[in-house]
């Protein structure tokens, strides 16, 4: 739905084929093959399995359901839930709904972008964080809100948001050090 969205274009450049185990996907397709209108549900399940929708998955679905790959791709790009690129280990979903907007969510976004050195829709090079926005997470009375892997945080200030990110980062590097020591 982003007609001249830069997001889609940058996705395409990264859109190369990866070798994947498709057996889990095949099981889902077998289950849903005869349900009419199940394409979206299959894509949702596939994304649950692989974390995103790699090209090989889209092609496999098209082949199995005997529909054009263009149609599968069309659906996958119409709905914002679907991602064609791997997400970070920590998915940051920053709310840009009305209540969060009037309570300063844009400033939090720019701070997060500065902290992570990525833009909205991107993933950090170490694969740790990806930043996306949502239109209302339904906790408007705690605005501004962000959700990291399903856990909501609010009300945020720019400082609080940075602290949360740094805490996660610190936790990650600790566990790395621990791993090496073993």
């Amino acid at each position, binding site marked *: *739905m*982003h*007609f001249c969205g830069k997001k889609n274009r940058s996705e395409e450049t990264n859109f190369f084929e990866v070798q994947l185990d498709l057996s889990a996907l095949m099981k889902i397709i077998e289950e849903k093959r005869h349900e*009419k*209108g*199940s*394409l*979206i*549900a299959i*894509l*949702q399940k596939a994304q649950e399995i692989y974390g995103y929708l790699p090209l090989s998955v889209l092609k496999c679905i098209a082949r199995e359901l005997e529909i054009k790959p263009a149609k599968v791709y*069309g*659906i996958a790009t*119409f*709905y*914002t*839930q*679907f991602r064609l690129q791997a997400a970070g280990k920590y998915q940051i979903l920053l709310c*840009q*709904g*009305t*209540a969060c*907007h*009037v*309570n300063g969510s844009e*400033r939090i976004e*720019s701070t997060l972008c*500065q902290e992570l050195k990525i833009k909205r829709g991107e993933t950090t090079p170490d694969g740790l964080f990806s930043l996306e926005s*949502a*239109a*209302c*997470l*339904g*906790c*408007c*009375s*705690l*605005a501004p*809100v962000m959700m990291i892997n*399903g*856990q*909501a*945080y*609010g009300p945020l200030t720019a400082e609080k948001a940075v602290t949360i990110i740094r805490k996660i980062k610190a936790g990650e590097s600790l566990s790395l050090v621990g791993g090496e020591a073993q």
Partner: protein
Amino acid sequence: MKLRLGLGSCGIAAGGLQVLEALQNEMKSRGIKLEIQKSGCIGLCHHEPLLDWIEDDGQVFTYGAVDARRSVEILEAHLAGRGPLEDCLVSSSDEPAKYLQQQLRIVLKNCGRIDPESIEDYRRQDGYSALQKVLIGMSPEEVIKEIEVSGLRGRGGAGFLTGLKWKATREAASEGRYLICNADEGDPGAFMDRSILEGDPHAVLEGMIIAAYAIGAEQGIIYCRAEYPLAVKRLEIAIVQAQENGLLGKKILGHNFSFDISIQQGAGAFVCGEETALMASLEGERGMPRLKPPYPSEYGLWGQPSSINNVETLANVPWIIRNGGEAFAALGSKESKGTKVFALAGKIKRGGLVEVPMGITLREIIFGICGGIKAERRIKAVQMGGPSGGCIPEELLDTPVDYQSLNATGAIMGSGGMVVLDESSCMVDLARFFLDFTQKESCGKCVQCRIGTKRMLEILERICRGAGREGDIELLEELSAHISENSLCGLGQSAPNPVLTTIRYFRDEYEAHIREKKCPAKQCQELLRYSIDPNRCMGCGLCAYACPAECIKGGENNQPYYIEQENCSKCGACLDICPERFAAVILD
């Protein structure tokens, strides 16, 4: 005695799970066993996390802003007979919070009071008695008649009479029919449907079963937003419980009526809240609206007659059946019957869910119930109806909340989201915000909606950037007229509303941006100018240290600092950091 903890989405976000853990640990270490009931949202969202202490005689003490430590103190105090703890008590049976007292709760009756994951809890509150009444003694026509008498109008936005919709669906000739519950709640800033689903899912199911009986549907589908994982989970639990209790499935409660419900999760497209787009999405297609007629009541999902009803609409149904359509019609105003749930957010002091009879004024809701504005500022406007709605200025706060009066202001009832704005909110920026939203969410089918909103957004962006031109306001008005006239669905038709209402009531703000290149609310970043008052600057240098653009110079030999304007990114860090006692950074 027992405890009750609010674990809706916002309760969890505010730290409800940590409270739960602390309480469980404390009880374990003391070897006491007390029930901790988990409930949904009671609507006092500004006080989250909420903890109730319930005495055996039913007395309730509600504590707000509880954290792990506080919760243990509350437990201790009550166990030792020292309760209640006055300082964080927000409501009690003897002295209910004014916030709750002034409401009239039909839809939210059980929210925050019962365990949403327990069908027994719901049954104890007369749950499923309306369904029984219907199955034992009412024909489908009588059910429809009762809903018609009640005057219930759809709460999803358009306000269409529910009875009429059901009647049309029932009368359409067909073998199979569908009942669809619209739980796509896309308006950013509205969260009543989420709270109902999380707090009282069985009420929605009961409403659906009754609706299905009335229209003659055997299959029901709940189309729920993917952003509401907790609502989906609680619905799944509720459906299984209903099936186990013979309330769903074949021959419901032994009667000659079968109906079952499945859940389909949305995939993040606002336009899928529109009924024909929603059906396209259910059919596995892109969610693009189609021309009406034929209406879904004749030609709906898979070509079968379908009734699409909103969550809140359906949650009203059991009450209407239990108490009769007349009782419902006695509430509210002449054309708008019953109650409406509003979700208050923004700059409001006591944000949360408010259910009131229709016809009371906006002022009563915002000031009477919700305590007005958060900081020491003045209210400027209230935004209603989200991206399809508009801004109602302070002068019009005595407008009653009913469909007609709100439409007359240029805003709409919409789904009931109210975002309250104060002087620090820029109305041009808000219009830009909504156009940005609709522009991205347009499905792309209609040229005017797809390209027109883009052009409007560009104009609004340049006004906010200080590059607005004379004539831009008129251009916006002209584009608005084209877009509303030539768009197929409600998204395009109503997309200009936020712009038109802000022009209508706040034209001077547009003019200040365009002519003086100033943002009166000091929100539009590029129109701001930060400077340092040399007479107030004490040379502490904090701002120069904080400035990410490194454009604050000076400070040698205790000289005041100054800002090199060309490099300033207007981030505001200097203003935030300058000690309050100096207050040397000026924003204008």
